[in-house]
C-alpha cells in the first residue's frame, strides 16, 4: 500500500487487521504502514482472520467487534484456542462506547479496547503504547 511513503522506516512489526468494513480496514492499514512503517495484513472476516493469523503469526491483531458471521469476541476465543495464535496480543476495535459494552469486552481478556472513530495519525502510537513497543 503506502509503506514508507511519509519517510518513516519500518521497525519490523507485523499487525493483522480483521474488519469487515473496507473503509475502516484500509484506512487503518494505511495508517499503520505509513505512520509506523509496520507490515500490515488484512482480513475481512473472523474466519479469514483466523487463517491469516495462524499462517503469518503477526505480532498483534486489531480485531473489529461487530462483524457478520463470526463476530470479534468469537474470533478472539477461537484465536485463544489455537496454540499457534493463543499468545498473539489482540486489541479490539469498536464503535460501541456504552459502558456495559466496555465491561463485556474487558471480561474477554483482550490487551486493549480501541474506539472508533480512530485518528489515523495516532493509531499506531496507541497500539505501540499499550503493547510496550515504544
Amino acid at each position, binding site marked *: 500500500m503506502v509503506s514508507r511513503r511519509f519517510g518513516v522506516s519500518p521497525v519490523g512489526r507485523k499487525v493483522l487487521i480483521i474488519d469487515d468494513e473496507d473503509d475502516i480496514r484500509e484506512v487503518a492499514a*494505511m495508517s499503520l504502514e505509513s*505512520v509506523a512503517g509496520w507490515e500490515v495484513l488484512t482480513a475481512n472476516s473472523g474466519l479469514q482472520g483466523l487463517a491469516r493469523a495462524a499462517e503469518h503469526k503477526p505480532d498483534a491483531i486489531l480485531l473489529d467487534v461487530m462483524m457478520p458471521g463470526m463476530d470479534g469476541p468469537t474470533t478472539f476465543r477461537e484465536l485463544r484456542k489455537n496454540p499457534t495464535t493463543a499468545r498473539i496480543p489482540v486489541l479490539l476495535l469498536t*464503535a460501541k462506547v456504552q459502558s456495559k459494552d466496555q465491561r463485556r469486552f474487558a471480561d474477554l481478556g483482550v490487551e486493549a479496547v480501541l474506539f472508533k472513530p480512530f*485518528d489515523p495519525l495516532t493509531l*499506531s502510537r496507541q497500539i505501540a503504547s499499550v503493547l510496550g513497543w515504544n
Partner: protein
Amino acid sequence: MNAFEEPGERREDVDDTAFKEVLDRMWTRFLPDIRDRAAVLDAAAKAAVDGTLNQAIRADALSAAHKLAGTLGTFGLPRGTDLARELELLYASDDGLEGAKAQRLATITAEIKAMIESRK
C-alpha cells in the same frame, strides 16, 4: 485491560499534507458506500415520519448508524460521528420512534447527509 481514554501521540516526522491527501483519496473511493449508509438512514427516518417504520428497516438503520459512527470521525467529521451515535442509540432503544423522535431522526439524518456532501 488497557482501554484508551486519550488519543495517542503522533510522530513528528509524518508529512501531514501527504497523509491528508491519501486520506482524501480514500474518502473519495469509499464515498459511495458512505452515501449508501446515509441513504439507509434517510429511508428509515422517512418511514418513521410516515409511521411505516418496521423492525427490518429499523435494524438496517441501526447497522448503518453504527458504521457511520465508526467511520465519519476517522475521516475528519467528528460531529458526524456524534450524530450517528445519537441515531444508533435511538434505533437501538425499545422506544417507539414516532412524533418528535421521528422528527429528530429526520433532522439528524439530514445534517449527516449535508456533512458528508460538504466534506472537502
